[in-house]
């Protein structure tokens, strides 16, 4: 679907590699993957941190705080993985293009 209406930049990004759209350049894919990885790493660290503080009985770490932190990290990792897959796919497409 080449619908121009998107919910967010992230969903926008997921149209990478879509044949209907102008294929993005390699740099764009690498850059957005790099950023997504950094985000995922950061959020994963926060989630682990939150879980440990909760396990230690830190009173400032509440149930919804730790659950939300964990879920955010999960989504970020999932997104980074998706971008990685798309990057690999784009690379393969490129390699299969007969010059």
């Amino acid at each position, binding site marked *: 679907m080449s619908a121009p209406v998107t919910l967010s930049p992230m969903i926008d990004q997921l149209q990478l590699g879509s044949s209907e759209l102008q294929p993005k350049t390699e740099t764009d894919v690498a850059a957005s993957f790099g950023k997504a990885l950094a985000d995922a790493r950061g959020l994963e660290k926060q989630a682990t941190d939150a879980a440990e503080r909760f396990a230690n009985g830190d009173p400032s770490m509440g149930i919804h705080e730790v*659950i939300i932190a964990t879920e955010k990290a999960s989504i970020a990792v999932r997104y980074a993985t998706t971008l990685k897959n798309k990057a690999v796919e784009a690379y393969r497409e490129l390699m299969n293009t007969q010059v």
Partner: protein
Amino acid sequence: MDFFTAMEVSASGLSAERTRMNVAASNLANAQTTQAAGGGPYKRKDVVLSAVDVPGAAGEPFAQAVRGVAVSQITQDAAPPRLEYDPGHPQANAQGYVAYPNVNPVEEMVDMITASRAYEAGVTSMTTAVNMAERALGIGR
């Protein structure tokens, strides 16, 4: 701070109301005790409640708004005993009056009922906190 502080607050209320109930029950049970330990008729007991700080809330910016409750003291009612004319009674004094405890059973029953109502409200409050915590656990499931 999580829900544990809210539960501490509710627990303090349950504890205080249970004391009130026990004291009212004790007063009722001894309404006719003319010879209490230490001599003389049983003296009615009263529970004094006061708002207190809750340890779990310490350090929070709005800690002063978190109020638990505690029994600050159990006092003896200083009202004079109820005198009944009964010269044949073994505890009758020289004038033929027997001193009965300064307990009004109706008042004690009312105290028990209000304490019971407050106890139930405390249970509702605590159950709500547990309920909210469970909703938090369900996020993302």
